[in-house]
């Protein structure tokens, strides 16, 4: 009997007006004509709730590119799910937001690319995006919905975490996420331009600790630590096929949003099967669930059920073998691939 998933990431579309260099979309995008229709999404959301999912994250791409976003949100709410909108803000007008609030939306996460307009718009590749983010943030707070600001940090903005937190406070966010770039897909391709130095990462960690102490009780600061410089790998997605699942715009169900980067995995599609059947029996979910797939040094490691061998996508990206120990781990046979640490050197 498998554990039940807690969260579903619903990637409603890969379409997005922004062009961030670390985009989490796969390199090969699902075209609009392949996107699931409204009725299928509503069925998937009902099946998710029946399976035990508690929260749905409506994401993309930019979910505002879907004309049926309000209907999908209403369907998620009616199924009893906690609904979270993850948006760039471009494409969510104030009238759409009002419709979403009436449909039962629980929370909004808005991405920002930097603390000031000029740099933020340059990173996003979209003039005027920053101003629209500020406007949507104000509208969210005006509706008394909780707001999270998400800032992906990399070499070009990592030294301005204080400005980013100040901006989140000025926007009246309850929470700010400082998320270091994760190097898959587009970010891996653009890694040489994005990866901060070890010194930058260390300065960022002290900045976050200082900001947390200074703003305690005013704003929650969550930081996603960059695993490239860590001793142990991250427990990626809380363990493969254990806590969460991800549905792509075209209906493929993935254990994590980057799983399609692993060549050879067989994904099942919600067009053909129920979510419960996919969760229980899909070859992609079974491939790395639990600890049976592990080799040494993971198989006998006392941390095997703490970090689950780390990230399968990263293991594949860096070694070509998805069942290898995540090279980030200092015990991994391939750790030298990470430990070189020079962001300008190609080690993939």
């Amino acid at each position: 009997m498998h554990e039940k998933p807690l969260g579903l990431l619903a990637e409603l579309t890969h379409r997005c007006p922004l062009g961030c260099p670390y985009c989490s979309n796969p390199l090969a995008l699902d075209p609009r004509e392949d996107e699931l229709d409204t009725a299928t999404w509503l069925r998937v959301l009902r099946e998710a709730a029946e399976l035990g999912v508690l929260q749905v994250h409506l994401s993309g791409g930019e979910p505002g590119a879907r004309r049926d976003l309000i209907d999908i949100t209403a369907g998620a709410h009616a199924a009893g799910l906690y609904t979270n909108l993850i948006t760039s803000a471009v494409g969510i007008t104030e009238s759409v937001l009002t419709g979403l609030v009436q449909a039962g939306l629980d929370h909004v996460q808005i991405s920002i690319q930097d603390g000031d307009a000029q740099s933020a718009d340059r990173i996003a590749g979209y003039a005027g995006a920053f101003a629209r983010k500020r406007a949507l943030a104000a509208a969210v707070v005006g509706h008394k919905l909780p707001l999270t600001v998400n800032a992906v940090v990399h070499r070009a903005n990592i030294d301005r975490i204080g400005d980013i937190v100040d901006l989140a406070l000025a926007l009246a966010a309850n929470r700010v996420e400082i998320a270091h770039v994760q190097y898959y897909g587009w970010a891996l391709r653009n890694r040489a331009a994005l990866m901060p130095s070890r010194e930058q990462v260390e300065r960022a960690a002290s900045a976050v600790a200082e900001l947390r102490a200074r703003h305690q009780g005013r704003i929650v600061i969550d930081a996603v630590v960059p695993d490239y410089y860590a001793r142990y790998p991250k427990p990626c997605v809380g363990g493969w096929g254990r806590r969460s699942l991800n549905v792509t715009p075209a209906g493929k169900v993935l254990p994590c949003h980057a799983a399609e980067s692993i060549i050879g995995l067989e994904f099942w599609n919600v067009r053909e099967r129920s979510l419960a059947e996919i969760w229980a029996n899909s070859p992609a979910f079974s491939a790395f669930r639990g600890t049976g797939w592990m080799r040494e040094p993971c198989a006998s490691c006392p941390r095997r059920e703490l970090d689950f061998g780390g990230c399968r996508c990263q293991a594949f990206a860096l070694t070509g073998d998805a069942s290898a120990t995540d090279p980030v781990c200092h015990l991994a046979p391939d750790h030298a691939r990470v430990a070189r640490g020079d962001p300008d050197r190609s080690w993939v």
Partner: protein
Amino acid sequence: MSDPAIPIDAAARPRLPRGVRLVHSEAQGGWVLLAPERIFKADAIAAEIIKRCTGEVTFGQLVDDLANSYTAPREKIRTDVATLLRGLADKKLLEL
């Protein structure tokens, strides 16, 4: 992070803010607190306390109520409840 030395006013009316709710999950086999992009499992005692955080009951009344329901010294209950509520407030999961 939370400082238990800061007392909670007996007249405070703790409540869950918008975007935070306590639900019972069959799949998870118990109570869970749903919050922005986070989920916290609540044990039976924590759930009993959080259920009373409606914005209508004062902290003092909440402690009295629990002291009547459970056989523990009122002062210990007050301290334990205050620690839990402070911790939740620090995470923006509760308004005091």
